[in-house]
């Protein structure tokens, strides 16, 4: 496994190298400028940094890519968060008349955190994850990605591994960025099925008729349930865990037969879902159980707020050292969170000498500093395990760029049309 041992104590040494030579600033800037369709979009964006010794600073903003780079290289943040695009430059928010400084737009975001599933996973708890419970993330991504695209009509979704125990989704469509708080919370609630805290046993309640969204989600869950719950989580392995399953409302008459039945369930799981002879309430108990074990659990509060700050892609996770990398959905089934490069790994990979590059360096010395720096950086990350993840990001940007072009054409088209109308009008008045 190509993972260097990561030691948090090394961060102060690794981070400067990372920000100088590896962090993909130009793609990052390209993303957050959104093609320049809206003025000052990048300039009015809030960033927040967590510095050494847990010092937290908000309302950071930058006027150019260069300024962003210089600042990050200077401050060397341990964590970077992205906030909203405001009405004014966040760094000058104190100078603005109170009440007029407002969050205007932001991507619609979702945060799926593994700790929210602790009541239904037996392999790990709290901050730990393993390949067994990682399946939950795959299920979550598949369900939410489909719903956001097909039901809500969004196109530009960036899924990012958080670096430790979850995934984030950034919905970057223009319409998504302009959503109100009420709309964001409505979307999040539409997507929520698992409700209730410690005290609630039965967290999923289904009733007739079953909404198409739930049916879609169920088909995803069903695909994975057998493998995940029965094999990996082994929810039927011990009386204790079977009891836990049985504590969910199952019509009593099934209990006895279930106990015996379920010990053999690995073979006969399918028959449960075919039991049509259950008439009253709890008729969907099998579906409810599957959903309770597997359906994505989102934190509505993260999605609701326009000004909510969320960990930035390509930020480093201080505890694990892993980079928050974009996830390629085409390779989702083979995505392994333990293969995600750590900062120590990529820094080490960077240091490995590559003979053929020494000459290129000399030739390009004549270019201006920034271009040279960028070119070097592009060469640099390409040498590391970070490369493939930056490619995912590039593809995501390209798809968006096509829509920006459309926007710009529309805008210039409007100008042209109104100008020609004006000319026509003028010609009439002078006739």
């Amino acid at each position, binding site marked *: 496994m190509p993972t260097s041992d990561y030691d948090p104590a090394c961060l102060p040494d690794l981070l400067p190298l990372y920000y100088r030579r590896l962090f993909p600033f130009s793609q990052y800037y390209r993303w957050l400028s959104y093609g320049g369709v809206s003025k000052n979009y990048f300039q009015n964006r809030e960033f927040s940094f967590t510095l050494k010794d847990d010092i937290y600073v908000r309302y950071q903003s930058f006027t150019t890519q260069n300024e962003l780079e210089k600042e990050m290289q200077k401050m060397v943040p341990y964590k970077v968060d992205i906030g909203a695009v405001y009405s004014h430059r966040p760094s000058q928010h104190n100078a603005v008349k109170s009440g007029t400084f407002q969050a205007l737009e932001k991507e619609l975001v979702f945060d799926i955190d593994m700790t929210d599933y602790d009541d239904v996973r037996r392999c790990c708890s709290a901050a730990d994850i393993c390949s067994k419970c990682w399946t939950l993330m795959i299920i979550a991504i598949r369900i939410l990605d489909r719903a956001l695209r*097909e*039901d809500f009509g969004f196109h530009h979704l960036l899924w990012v591994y958080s670096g430790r125990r979850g995934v984030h989704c950034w919905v970057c469509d223009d319409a998504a960025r302009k959503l109100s708080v009420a709309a964001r919370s*409505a979307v999040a609630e539409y997507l929520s099925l698992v409700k209730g805290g410690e005290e609630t046993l039965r967290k999923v309640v289904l009733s007739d008729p079953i*909404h*198409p*969204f739930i049916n879609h989600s169920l088909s995803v869950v069903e695909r994975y349930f057998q493998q995940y719950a029965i094999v990996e989580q082994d929810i039927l392995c011990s009386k204790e865990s079977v009891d836990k399953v049985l504590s969910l409302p199952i019509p009593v008459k099934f209990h006895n037969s279930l106990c015996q039945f379920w010990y053999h369930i690995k073979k006969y799981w399918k028959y449960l879902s075919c039991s049509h002879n259950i008439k009253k309430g709890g008729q969907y108990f099998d579906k409810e159980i599957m959903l309770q074990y597997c359906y994505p659990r989102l934190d509505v509060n993260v999605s609701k707020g326009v000004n909510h700050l969320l960990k930035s892609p390509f930020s480093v996770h201080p505890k694990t050292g892993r980079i928050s990398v974009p996830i390629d959905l085409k390779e989702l089934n083979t995505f392994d969170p333990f293969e995600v490069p750590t900062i120590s790994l990529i820094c080490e990979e960077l240091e490995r000498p590559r003979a053929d590059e020494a000459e290129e360096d000399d030739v390009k010395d004549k270019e201006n500093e920034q271009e040279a720096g960028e070119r070097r950086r592009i060469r640099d990350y390409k040498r590391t395990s970070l490369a493939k993840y930056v490619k995912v990001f590039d593809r995501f940007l390209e798809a968006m760029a096509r829509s920006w072009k459309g926007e710009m054409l529309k805008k210039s088209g409007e100008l042209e049309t109104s100008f020609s109308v004006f000319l026509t009008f003028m010609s009439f008045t002078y006739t």
Partner: protein
Amino acid sequence: MQFSGRRKKLIGNFQNDLYDQCLQFYGQPPLENISLTEFETFAVERLKLLKTVENVGVSCVKNSEQYTKKLDAEISSLNFPHRGGISEYEKRRKDHISHFILRLAYCQTEDLRRWFIQQEMDLFRYRFNCLHSKHKTDFLHKNNLKYETVSAEEKKNLKDKLIASSYGLSGTKVEEHDVYKVPFQDALDLVRTRKVYLLAGNAYIPHHEIVTIVLNDFRTRLSKALAMTARSLPAVQSDERLQPLLSHLSHAYVGQDYSIQKNIGKISLEQIDALSGKSFPLCMRHLHKALRENHHLRHGGRMQYGLFLKGIGLTLEQALQFWRSEFVKGKVDADKFDKAYAYSVRHMFGKEGKRTDYTPYSCMKVILSNPPSQGDYHGCPFRHSDPELLKQKLQNYKVSPSGINQVCPTTSTHLTRFSTVCVKGFLKLNLVEDAGFSLNHPNQYFTESQKFLSGGRDIKKEVDMSQRSQENPASVTHPSQANSKQAHEEMGDLDSFFQDE
């Protein structure tokens, strides 16, 4: 002849264009000159209409048959458009103008805005539901609501999904009625609860649900408009002709003011104790009790109770005797009473100073002005009492727990809701389903109660026109004789509750 004929034609065309629809979103303000009289009349009439909307909405289930019938009757009697008749121009004009006038009066505070928006929404919903399906679609299109109808083919393809997502939608309904495609941002309530089918960012809304969407739109527009109106209000208020009217409107009580007593001298002082248990609203019962116990009431209490007593028919002489006899039992001797307090009693009756014949306070006035502080007994108990205490009282009124929660004041309870609770007491006491009146004034409570107890109500009595503005047609469900026995028993309960206080 020719000349006037032509003029008629012109007006006809103008009418057709300006008010061609029965219902409107009130997007454009009216642009004509009107007289101050019309200004005032229109405003007051619309206010009556909105209050009726509120009262009917409280006493009947919204959109039920009863509700529709009652509103129908009120709207026609007040001369507002609703069912799209042919010669509705004048009514529609009044509708248009009166709405905008009331915006001026109701934009100033959060409470007022909320009340106004709520009633206007209920009125709008009622009128929208009265429209024919075709007119509904016309209305939507005319108002730029980009709600496309889904093609028959698409409906067929999506039929199962539509049925599985929308409440009350069957296969036939999908085929026969329109389904609208609406951007999901305009249907958040349905999206949030997953009660609608979503595809590619559009919500597929069946015909019967479209009104919810339209209402949301209406509310948003009106809310924004009111905020804007509030900003330009100072300019309007500086017009001296309008300012008094506008401030009067927002606190308006539009019923009888009990300044002209019909029953002067018909009440004797000995009757007051008994009457207070039977026919006084809770606020006055409180005041009376406090007066009897403490032999004193402070100014606020004296005003509220004293004017009420005047309203039920006490003469000046009786009032003086009443107050003196009570105060003398306390710390005030006859001399001091004559010097200090008698003056204010005479003042109440308009015999001193400006000689203003003060009118008894309406519920709105009791609730809004002069909140009680320590040592006071005036105000509205539903508004000013401690919540826990109030809950107990309501329980004693035998209001159900859900009812208590419904009517117990919260921070968002509007001022006019308090009187509905007071009426509930009347309902329980007299064992009627429908009080047959909406409470706006303590003296009204007294009059209604007295009327009821004296058996003056017949089932489905037709109320004469002059009374219309304060009462809805009575509809008592039990014959009065059987009632009085039960009423006595109930009263016993009520009395004992009061003793525990």
